[in-house]
């Protein structure tokens, strides 16, 4: 068996992982990133919109500063975030954008002169100042007071990831792609690295490191429909939760987007509705105006997504081989508008659906989009529970997003947190002396080898991994979706427990030789069901509505009892349920909990008398 030593092992070569690795490499440490796919194919490359940073260069961003960005972020999180972290983030973001410019990102720049823009379907004028010519420009995004989103045309994530990967190549940060981390090596106190499976040969490899970083991105694939890439399957989270000592934070905080296309669940922008597109049901009739007479299709993301789901549940969905969906209608906007301002949408529809949105309806439904929760870390990115283990990016719960993240804030988080946490890792390494305990390593390798053998030989059973996976996804889709109830979640948890039992009996149909994809799926199915349980049990317990977590039976935000963060542990491998604990959402309040200023919701204030704890 090949054993590879390095100072820092970063599991994940997306923006967050590579940015952290750069910081360590610049401090003189050796760094290796693992990735399921070539680093540039990581899902960060799919982000088109942009990243938020208070540059304040453009006319509509004038007067912007980290304070305003911070306030927007806290409100967006519905006061669920760690305010100290959000503060660090907002302060650091502009510097990070400039660093990216220095490294080669071709940011959109300010062009002086008069111009126009649309808002709410109306045309407005603006004028960019000559003195700002050529500085980094920003565009408008939801939930922000100013235009603050730095962008590179419609390929921000792509361009930034390519640039960061170039810097990695320059600094000699190794990327071992087609390599999947399947477990962490640890003794319950310290993390020593990971056991990984080579996706070129199927062989196991041991990576030993003084610091290990989980930067594996989101885990949307535990849902049946998601805008996430097929590799966003939670593999990294599973290695952490399997240690039994590292908790997952706020797994119930899941963001849904109203318009994912069916069947491939690719995202089409909110701009469709912003520009006047409507939602239709099976009878090709509008319905949003019935539910939301005032804002109609243009109510906030979570509200629209909630009503769409409701409408489908009423049997008004359009049946298709890929499940029920609704229609998005932009035909009335006309060809010029669609091939002009909505070109991206036009291209997605024509190349993926074979639908011409100028003459045809676009099949859409609310779709899982982002995971606020993940490996819980402190503000330095250190994971709770194990020394030498860090986490960064969407995989982590560093916690600047709380219960709802703002558009443009997560791509920015990857590089800002990557920079901050990377520095902390370098500091940690400066003093680190690690002795690798060979019996711990051998035991972990043996355990993984046995696990693989057992699945191949169908020792525990012959459950089909794809069917189990579908059962898990369907349970979450039904019970832990956009809006949640006690009954729904209880049923979901019950189904998932049954699914967990099945997951433990998975055996392969194929021979399992080499890079067998069935084996890859089988190795993580049990962990995925555990994550699904953490998510649904957390949601069941949280008897309030906050941000994206909507309980129909508890519609109020309850600051009295639930200004907290859920920590979910899987203490013993053979447990059937996670163990939950809670901590304060934030130690320091720069902004006390209050009204967000949008999305009407009842608030139970922190200082009201407690009658019964939900």
């Amino acid at each position, binding site marked *: 068996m090949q054993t590879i030593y390095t100072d820092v092992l970063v599991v994940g070569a997306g923006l967050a992982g590579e940015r952290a690795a750069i910081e360590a490499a610049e401090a003189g440490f050796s760094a290796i990133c693992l990735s399921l796919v070539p680093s540039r194919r990581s899902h960060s490359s799919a982000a088109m919109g942009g990243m938020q940073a208070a540059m304040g260069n453009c006319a509509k961003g004038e007067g912007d500063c980290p304070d305003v960005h911070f306030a927007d972020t806290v409100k967006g999180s519905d006061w669920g975030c760690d305010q100290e972290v959000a503060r660090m983030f907002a302060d650091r973001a502009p510097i990070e954008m400039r660093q990216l410019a*220095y490294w080669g990102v071709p940011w959109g720049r300010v062009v002086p002169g008069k111009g126009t823009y649309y808002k709410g379907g109306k045309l407005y004028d603006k004028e960019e100042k000559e003195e700002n010519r*050529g500085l980094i420009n920003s565009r408008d995004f939801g939930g922000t007071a100013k235009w603050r989103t730095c962008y*590179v045309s419609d390929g921000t994530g792509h361009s930034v990831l390519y640039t960061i990967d170039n810097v990695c190549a*320059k600094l000699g940060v190794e*990327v071992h792609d087609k390599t999947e981390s399947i477990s962490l090596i640890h003794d319950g106190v310290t993390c020593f690295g990971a056991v990984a499976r080579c996706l070129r040969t199927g062989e196991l490899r041991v990576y030993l490191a003084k610091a290990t970083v989980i930067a594996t991105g989101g885990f949307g694939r535990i849902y049946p429909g998601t805008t996430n890439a097929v590799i966003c399957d939670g593999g990294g989270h599973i290695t952490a939760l399997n240690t039994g000592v590292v908790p997952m934070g706020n797994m119930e905080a899941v963001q849904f987007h109203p318009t994912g296309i069916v069947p*491939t669940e690719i995202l089409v922008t909110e701009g469709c509705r912003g520009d006047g597109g409507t939602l239709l049901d099976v009878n090709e009739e509008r319905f949003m105006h019935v539910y939301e007479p005032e804002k109609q299709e243009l109510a906030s993301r979570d509200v629209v997504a909630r009503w769409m789901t409701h409408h489908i549940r009423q049997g008004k969905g359009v049946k298709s081989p890929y499940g029920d969906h609704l229609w998005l209608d932009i035909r009335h906007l006309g060809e010029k508008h669609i091939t002009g301002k909505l070109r991206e949408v036009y291209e997605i529809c024509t190349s993926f*659906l*074979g639908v011409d949105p100028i003459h045809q309806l676009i099949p859409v439904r609310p779709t899982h989009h982002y995971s606020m929760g993940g490996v819980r870390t402190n503000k330095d990115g250190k994971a709770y529970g194990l020394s030498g283990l860090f986490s960064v990016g969407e995989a982590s719960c560093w916690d600047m997003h709380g219960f709802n993240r703002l558009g443009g804030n997560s791509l920015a988080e990857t590089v800002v947190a990557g920079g901050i946490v990377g520095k902390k890792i370098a500091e940690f390494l400066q003093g680190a002396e690690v002795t690798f305990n060979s019996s711990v390593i051998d035991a972990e390798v043996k355990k993984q080898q046995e696990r693989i053998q057992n699945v191949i030989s169908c020792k525990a059973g012959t459950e089909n991994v794809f069917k189990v996976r579908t059962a898990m996804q369907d349970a979450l889709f039904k019970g832990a979706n956009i809006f949640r109830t006690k009954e729904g979640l209880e049923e979901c948890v019950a189904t998932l427990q049954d699914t967990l039992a099945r997951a433990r009996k998975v055996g392969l149909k194929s021979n399992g030789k080499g*890079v067998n*994809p069935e084996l890859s799926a089988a190795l993580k199915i049990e962990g995925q069901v555990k994550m699904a349980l953490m998510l649904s049990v957390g949601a069941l317990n949280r008897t309030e509505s906050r941000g994206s977590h909507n309980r129909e039976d508890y519609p109020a935000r309850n600051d009295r009892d639930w200004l907290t963060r859920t920590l979910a542990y899987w203490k013993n491998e053979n447990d059937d349920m996670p163990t939950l604990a809670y901590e304060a959402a934030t130690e320091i309040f720069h902004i006390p909990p209050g009204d967000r200023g949008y999305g009407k919701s009842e608030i139970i204030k922190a200082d009201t008398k407690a009658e019964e704890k939900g």
Partner: protein
Amino acid sequence: MARLLKFNIFRYNPQDPESTPHMESFVLEETDSMTLFIVLNRIREEQDPSLQFDFCCRAGICGSCGMVINGRPGLACHTKTKDLPDEITLLPLPVYQLVGDLSVDTGSWFRELYDTVESWIHTSKAFDPTAQEERMEDSMAEAIYELDRCIECGCCVAACGTARMRPDFLGAAGINKVGRFLIDPRDERTERDYFEIIGNDMGIFGCMGLLACEDVCPKHMPLQNQLGFLRRKMGITALKSFFKK
């Protein structure tokens, strides 16, 4: 009644001594808006769970799913069965090391490319975190992005006859990568420096103008224009360095 589609798929698992390269057929009933992404996943889940292939974003932006579809390299996630005949042949991309079935190793190939062309900004300046960013015209930024759009799917290389005959040829994607830095004002390399990289038969002078790269690129990168531009530029540098010597 929907069409029955027959897929002839290249099968070979190099890690299995019993496996030999062969074609295997699968039949599926066509559904609405079916793409090859849906097809291959259904085959894996319903018929043969050992079938290897690569998808990631499944939205035509990450470049994972390049394969040879009825003779032409293209993105599988991007390909609708509606546009294909009843019988569809899928082969792995040539040029790249085969991992198994339809999966190839583009990662190693491109990583080597980054080192060869040193695909990063070469500058003597240090980053100053307290300073305002250096200014750049928006039109320049857009021109750079136009060349930065390549998703490294490898289709252009797989479709290029030169690349098939000369294993050391950088391919359109590789040559274009140099072009991206050549126009970037932040990169201080001179034309001579770029000439060292692509001013030879591994680079721009190896290209025979077959233009399959231009015709298969799923991102419609301006490869023809770019190759022409760089050949002129490097051709002139070749003359200059010959006469100056």
